[in-house]
């Protein structure tokens, strides 16, 4: 239903769905701004436990960047109508996304092993909160990837504007959570 209205009314350059996603991303950025600002304020106020980030977080960073590249290549594959490239890389991006979540979990375990408790110091609480909130947003992206895979494998391969738009929505969000993670990592490294 909603797509019908959007198609019927569309006569300007921007795709309303993509535009709506941009606004949603702005909202998400504001939520993380709330947390990172609170982090800066608490950090400046002292009583802040200093610790290095677990190695697993660097490995997971590489993984999510890789998945972004792979998904983009899959998108190029779809545009060039190379079915195998499109489907294969889509699955690979999904696998890398899931791997990222698993690695984040390993990272939390390492962090806990380093003696950084969830409750004992606000520094630890913030690190767990921010990384977990980001992971939740990645899970949202993984859900979108699952939907994209269902489309890829259940529908007959065909290049349509509508399907390209849908793919672009997933791609836009996936790049967003990728860049968000890089930002959060650099943020946490620089405010230690």
């Amino acid at each position, binding site marked *: *239903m909603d797509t019908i*209205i959007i198609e*019927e009314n569309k006569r300007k350059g921007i795709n309303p769905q993509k535009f*709506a996603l941009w606004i949603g991303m*702005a909202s998400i950025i*504001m939520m993380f701004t709330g947390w990172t600002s*609170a982090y800066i304020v608490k950090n400046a106020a002292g009583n802040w436990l200093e610790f290095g980030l677990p190695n697993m977080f660097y490995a997971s960073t590489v993984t999510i960047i890789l998945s972004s590249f792979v998904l983009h290549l899959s998108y190029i594959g779809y545009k060039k109508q190379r079915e195998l490239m499109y489907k294969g890389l889509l699955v690979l991006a999904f696998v890398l996304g899931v791997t990222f979540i698993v690695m984040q979990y390993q990272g939390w375990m390492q962090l806990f092993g380093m003696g950084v408790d*969830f409750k004992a110091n606000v520094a630890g609480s913030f690190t767990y*909160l921010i990384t977990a909130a980001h992971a939740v947003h990645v899970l949202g992206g993984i859900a979108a990837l699952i939907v994209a895979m269902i489309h890829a494998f259940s529908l007959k391969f065909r290049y349509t504007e509508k399907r390209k738009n849908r793919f672009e929505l997933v791609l836009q969000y996936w790049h967003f959570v990728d860049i968000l993670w890089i930002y959060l990592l650099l943020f946490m490294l620089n405010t230690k």
Partner: protein
Amino acid sequence: MANIATTYNDDLLIQEHGLNDHFHDHHHGDKYQSGFISHYIFSMDHKIIARQFLITGIIWAIIGAAMSVVFRLQLGFPEESLAWLKPVLGKWIVIDPTGMGTLAPEFYYALVTMHGTILVFFVLTAGLSGTFSNLLIPLQLGARDMASPFLNMLSYWFFFMAGIVMFYSLFLSTGPFSGGWTAYPPLSALPQASTGSGTGMTLWLVSLTLFVVSVLLGGINYITTVLNLRTKGMSLWRMPLTIWAFFITAIIGVLSFPVLASGFFMLMMDRGLGTSFFLSEIFIEGQALDRVGGSPVLYQHLFWFLGHPEVYIIILPAMGLVSEVLAVHSRKPVFGYRAMVYSMLAIGFLSFIVWAHHMFMSGVNPFISNFFVVFTLIIAVPSAVKVFNWITTLYGGNIRLNTPMLFSIGFVSMFISGGLTGVFLGNSTIDIQMHDTYFVVAHFHIVMGVAAFFGMFAGIYHWYPKMYSRFMNETLGKIHFWGTIIGAYAIFWPMHFIGMAGVPRRYYSFDTFDAFKHFSGMNQFITIAAILVFFVQLIFVINFFYSIWKGKKMTTKNPWGATTLEWTTPIEPIHGNWPGNLPAVHRWAYDYNKDEREFIPQIVPLEEGEVGDH
């Protein structure tokens, strides 16, 4: 009723100049609007959703106002027995052996808290911006519906669920949350802090988190619709001020509510997972808690980063509605259209950098306070521009003093009265005396409570024919207006004096304070006024529901002689809003009394040699 000298054949104009968007009219076999449930309950039509928001808002307004009557009874008549309320409030009315019933103090706090939460979020955010953004954005822009009707429906149902959870919390044996609508920790962070801090606070958080989702879904939709679905010719500078107001409101909401959500998530972790974001060195019943390292002021920053934009989320839609109603019913173009838009944009921007003026007394650095004082006082500039423009719109106009117009003028009056005291409170030095007194209560109730209600009433009386194809009763409307404006001033004017004398807000009773005892007469006066105003609002409620079925029928499409697109739609609303082509727009929204013509709708093309717009 309007005496309209000029008539236009809307259908012909739309047919000749309109935009054919290949809209398929699904009168028969319309799969999403055919049954009762899909039409009236899980509807995706923006006009139905608008009415759902409005009626839900009215129900919450009655509940919230009734709560204020109960706590005003306690404040005005602490010696009188409230035993007669026992059937409604149950165990919260404590009856002593002599048969004297008193309101339980903890429930007094719960009532004050719920009154604030309900009115601010459920009535003046969802009920006001939810209703009119939904109704007017597609209609005034010439769109078939919102960008995503499905998300729009979800927005209402998230609000509805938020309401259900909050309503349920009213009936908990420990009572609803009682730590103030701002939910400052530690009262909100420690379940053992007070009776309402347990399950009551948990449900409060759940409810408001659902509410944030509703606002975000709504806001994303409103912004997308305004930027993407305007009809042919509807440039941004031709949009009515209502749409500008809803648009800026939605942007503010989308940027500020997520920050509230981040504060809420941290609060949830403090409550449930044992973190100490907002807690440090707390003793409860002589026991020291092991929660250290947090800061309750941090929560206040996160809360007010939403909380201050929130008051503009409430007042901007009211400003937009009033601007439109004033122009239509004084038969004049709105004065300084662009200045109105720029001042709303300025207010929207400034609303994000003044939040700490709610925290002058919370222990923030006084040097930082100076920054917030300056920006707070600067908000007076765009606000004054708007007030000046409303008054100059009225000046020399052909004024129709009907109910929507009266409420719009009342809005301007209230906004001036309440805005001036804001200049006092914005000064951090004066705030030392005024902070947390009835002066503050008077200020914000007038400027964003009563004023926003006036804007909402103006909107309801003015657009009622567009919602229900009937008119509300004009005599009852005028009684409603005069009762409300006189009563509201009678309630809040005396509070300024009580507040300047230092009487603190939120106190259950002043019996033990010698300094405040002599205000009992004034408190009685305020309480009596509040009860009368409450009953005057019931006249409105009766008028509203009676008129849905029995009101005077609308016989012409454009009863007010307005220029905007919603008055070119059929009298009986249809899905898709216009039966054939979409209207195309040729001029701005305020061509009143131009070139010897009483009014010129936006769909009328420019005549040869005519200069368009403003």
